[in-house]
């Protein structure tokens, strides 16, 4: 699968849109995207099993590598793995130019409260800036920091903290 570089994305979008869908399928998302064979928009019966509604949050989750990127302790840089994730998100956003997203920044519990709000904001902004560098209009991205207030992994151990140091992209319907 060709890896996208970070520049000139808008020109590539149309070409890569279907590729990215295929890439997703190979990553076994929870729900498969609709088959690309669908020129058959002719009056399907309503009980037809459906994939996610195109442009929906479910479609977003099914289409991108992940909705979440992770950070090292007290860091906010976008590492190579996160770049790939954000590139897949940028592709989806290019496909649905009317969609807005919120980037949530989070921290692990091993920080003081005020600082973590600032650090979560910094992480979400780093992710936002990377998406913008990929051609996503900044006005489509809002940022909110939850600091250490919303952990998803509940242990007090390095593995849990690593999961909680994250930025999550959520589509706004």
């Amino acid at each position, binding site marked *: 699968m060709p890896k996208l570089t970070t520049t000139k994305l808008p020109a590539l979008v149309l070409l890569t849109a279907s590729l990215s869908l295929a890439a997703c399928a190979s990553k076994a998302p929870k729900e498969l995207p609709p088959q690309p064979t669908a020129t058959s928009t002719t009056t399907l019966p309503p009980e037809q099993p459906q994939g996610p509604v195109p442009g929906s949050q479910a479609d977003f989750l099914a289409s991108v590598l992940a909705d979440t990127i992770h950070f090292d302790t*007290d860091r906010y840089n976008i590492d190579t793995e996160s770049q790939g994730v954000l590139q897949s998100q940028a592709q989806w956003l290019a496909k649905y130019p009317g969609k807005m997203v919120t980037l949530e920044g989070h921290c692990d519990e091993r920080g003081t409260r005020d600082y973590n709000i600032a650090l979560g904001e910094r992480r979400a902004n780093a992710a936002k800036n990377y998406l913008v560098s990929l051609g996503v209009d900044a006005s489509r991205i809002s940022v909110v920091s939850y600091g250490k207030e919303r952990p998803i992994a509940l242990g007090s151990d390095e593995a849990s903290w690593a999961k909680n140091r994250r930025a999550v992209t959520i589509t706004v319907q």
Partner: protein
Amino acid sequence: MKIRKIALILSLSALPIVAVAQPQPLPASKVAPAGQAPADDGGLTGSVTDESEWQDLGIAIPAFPTDTAVATPAEGGNTEALGRNLARVVFNDLKNNGLFKPVGPDALPGIGYPQVTAPSFDVWRARSAEMLVQGFVKAAPDGKLTVGCYLYDVALGSELIRQGYVVQPAEWRRAAHKCADMVYARLSGESPFFDSKIAYIAETGPKDHRRKQLAIMDSDGANHRFITNGQATALTPRYSPDYSKIVYLSYLNGYPRIYVYDIGSGQQRLVTEGKGPTFAPRWSPDGKSILYSMALNGNTDIYRVSAQGGASTRLTNTPGINVGGSYSPDGSKIVFESDRSGSQQVYVMDADGSNQRRISFFGGRAATPEWSPRGDQIAFTHIGGNFRIAVMDPNGGSLRFLTDSWQDEAPTWSPNGRIVQFFRTEKNSGKTGIWQVDLTGRNERKLNTPVDASDPAWGPVLP
């Protein structure tokens, strides 16, 4: 707020003898005849386990008698029962702070009303009491309560100090706190602090779905009240110096912003219409301005805004996270936290933002600095493996750790600068509680709160 309703009687020369005429007979209580001591089932032996560091005074605090037991809306239902409750509050205040070994009314014989000003010193000497706190309570026809408070040196057989207070029945506990403050200040030489309040965040629910409500209580945990309902996460409250408002962070409308909540009206308003999230709010000592932090494009700086609103003044301007802030008592300087050096450290600047300099140069990180109301110490969270509460002087010297646990953070000072409150988080469970420790680090205890608690903010002594 009815702060002004408490009046200090400055020269309470003698006990009023004439009983106040009362329209109502007593509902329940049987009035014990003055001077008749109940069964002696206690004494000044044992019952206190605190390791006292610099005081080992046995203080006897018998129930405060009343001239005539009459009905009152204050706790107890009548002035006689109220007198016992008053003495209990004084006892608990003095007991819970590690400096004294008081014995309360439930372990002591009662005294008669005339004895309040003429103690039976021989009886107390026989009980090994060194100090004696006696008081009385009586109700005026309009319902107001008069509480007298006397401190005696038993060995000398003499009075050390006395005060009297007139309070509304609903504020009866304040009279007891003022009495405890009088005793504490006279015996320790320190400023008083019991008659004060705490704002904090009440926490319930599982770790990944924590409900966080703004709440307030008296310094001893009484008069507890939830302010917000928990639908929006509330964090980091601070009482205004006059207790009329609380500034805090709320995720109301989805984004973190600081609001000023007016306790009297129940209304709140945004402090500033910033472009970015605003957080870590703090009052100036005169209550006229508010410090806050705002993040813009990943960079966080500290700003000052009038408490009335208006334009903000930016005080820091360096890449990185500059956050928090706590004024020196005279308002001339601000201690704050910054990671401009690469990790969280403590800095001091002039109140206008000039002369910024780092003061913490020991190992580990240093966060959440709070200037003592006495001006001589800065309490902060030391991060080096575990999170511990520590103090240093305003130049960054004389580092001392006060606690040693897995995660203690966010210190706040007692009004007299002798005790630090903070919150402690349990490993794994994420349960939180408010604790306090004195400056010796030896007298540490957890405060009783109805639910889990964090982000304490101790206000000044009430006028």
